């Protein structure tokens, strides 16, 4: 599938010379085991400022484990993480956040029943007053939330409205805007488009490109090749816990990505099977009416 004209136009403003920089975040030969289960083995991944690194893989490929390792939830059993080229160890998600690495989980990012302002500042509430009279500075928070949402192109007229009244794409965008406002340099987006329709996905993809153009490094996790291909600068494929291949933009097409993900062969197989099934079913229905009841023989 070719990139759409919309994203192509956005891609032209790619910051140059991204390849010369030290990666903002780098994972080298990461392995993680859960008992006897090898979740990931020797996986490497990097993201630079102003780049979108797509992490592609089928369900169970180890994407979640890798993300959780990058964001400080798990400690890797082998391998190292590096931020700006310096080796680091994250003891908690807070450590990763402090290093500027923010993760937006697909369904665990916003509270639908809380207002836009309260969601935006959850865990980072600005306060006024001192001692026991220290309180959540809601007017200030509402002002910032409105400005930040407007900056990324969502006009929230009433920041008191519950996030549940926003569309799915807007909720993801709110989580992205929030991460960026609180100093994220690397955004890890876990399947941000998987639960969304076409239009809503487009909103999110547009904001991913916009965030990259503002100089952020983005790790975009997806199993949807047609979402990754238009906006990715590099593509890392994860298959059965191992790195299945790494490609740059332009060196790879959708078929290659599909087959590398381990889904390509299955898809071809499935297509053949379905075609055969369609043929075999068409034949009897054309000549004789379908037999009712349990008379079908094998």
């Amino acid at each position, binding site marked *: 599938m070719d990139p759409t004209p919309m994203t192509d136009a956005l891609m032209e403003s790619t910051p140059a010379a991204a390849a010369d920089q030290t990666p903002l975040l780098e994972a080298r030969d990461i392995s993680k085991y859960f008992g006897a289960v090898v979740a990931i083995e020797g996986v490497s991944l990097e993201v630079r400022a102003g780049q979108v690194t797509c992490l592609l893989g089928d369900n169970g490929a180890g994407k979640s484990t890798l993300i959780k390792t990058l964001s400080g939830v798990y400690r890797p059993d082998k391998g190292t993480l590096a931020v700006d080229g310096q080796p680091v160890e994250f003891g908690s998600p807070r450590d990763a956040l402090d290093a500027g690495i923010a993760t937006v989980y697909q369904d*665990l990012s916003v509270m639908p*029943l809380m207002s836009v302002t309260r969601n935006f500042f959850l865990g980072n509430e600005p306060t006024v007053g001192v001692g026991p009279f220290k309180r959540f500075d809601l007017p200030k928070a509402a002002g910032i939330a409105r400005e930040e949402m407007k900056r990324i192109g969502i006009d929230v007229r009433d920041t008191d409205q519950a996030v549940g009244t926003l569309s799915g794409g807007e909720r993801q965008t709110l989580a992205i805007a929030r991460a960026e406002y609180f100093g994220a340099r690397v955004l890890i987006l876990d399947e941000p488009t998987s639960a969304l329709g076409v239009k809503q996905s487009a909103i999110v993809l547009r904001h991913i490109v916009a965030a990259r153009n503002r100089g952020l490094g983005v790790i975009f996790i997806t199993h949807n090749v047609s979402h990754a291909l238009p906006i990715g600068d590099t593509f890392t494929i994860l298959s059965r816990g191992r790195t299945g291949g790494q490609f740059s933009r332009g060196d790879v097409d959708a078929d290659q990505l599909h087959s590398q993900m381990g889904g390509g062969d299955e898809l071809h197989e499935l297509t053949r099977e379905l075609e055969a099934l369609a043929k075999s079913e068409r034949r009897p229905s054309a000549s004789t009416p379908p037999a009712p009841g349990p008379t079908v023989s094998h």
Partner: protein
Amino acid sequence: MASTTTTTPRAPGSDRLRNLSLTQRILARPAAGALIIVVFVWVVFAAISLARGNTAFMGIPGTLNYLDVAAQVGIVATAVALLMIAGEFDLSIGSMVGFAGILIGIGVTIWGLPVWLSIIMAMIATTFLGVINGLIVVRTGLPSFIVTLATLFIIRGASSVLTSTVTNITYIPIDPTRIAGDPLAEFFGWSMPVSIGGQTGTLQISILIWIVIAVAGIYVLGRTRFGNWIAGVGGSAGAARNLGVPVARVKIALFAMTAFSASILAAIQSVRFNSADILRGTGIELDAITTAVIGGSLLTGGYGSVAGTALGALALGMARQGIVFADINADWYKIAIGTLLLVAVVLNNWIRRRFAGLT
């Protein structure tokens, strides 16, 4: 594309928002349903009382009377509502009321401690039980419904064992002369006659304590960081943790606050009745949950209102005493409360969908 001419770019979202009238904005508040319920209950019992020729319900004696009943539920329900908004339950508060009272009774009568010291000791011990509730829930990850159901039995049983060991009965009288002159006992036993229009009622300290606790609860939930964390933890503990909210500390603090409020109620009752009884507080955990739900709190957490809970307690108190003033058989009280609860939940759900746009 040729068709992209003069349409001004519109931010996504704004074309899908309607302007709401003031009435709609008020109805979008979580406490709206409870307000409607309170007005309804008052009108019903005022009408029945009037029809039976009794004006006390509408006057100062009736008002202060049902406010006292509402206050006793409201004092614990405020903390219970905050706990529910954080996504947890506490079924053990009723047994904590009994336990705290027994500790006060033993302290004063058996150990000969001053009443104020016994009350402080009971408050510390009960709050500690709340911390244990919280620790078990946080550490085991078990539903708090189960954990506090277990501690409900354990604490109620422990109160029995404790009293039967030291007194052989389940009831400990407190000498009224010990209460006179004791600073904390005088405080929790304070009351004042209030006369309006030739009728006289009694303003109990419970009403004032309830107002202070409710206002503090509204402030904490609406205006502090901790309040934002409470709603966040109940909305999604995982997401809140990812955003740096100390989820376990928030939950444990709320269990401790709930237990502390149970000990306040125990202090009020022990001093007022000059006694402690292991059965005090039986069933108040369900009254408190009923009150919080009437007030618009969701059983699943993440949404609710302290002001609504106060209104819920008011509705409960009005119904309980309204039945007395209207000279109706008291057996009808439970039927009334059950019906109110159902009506309130349906009403709150409808309001939330219709006016707040939430499902």
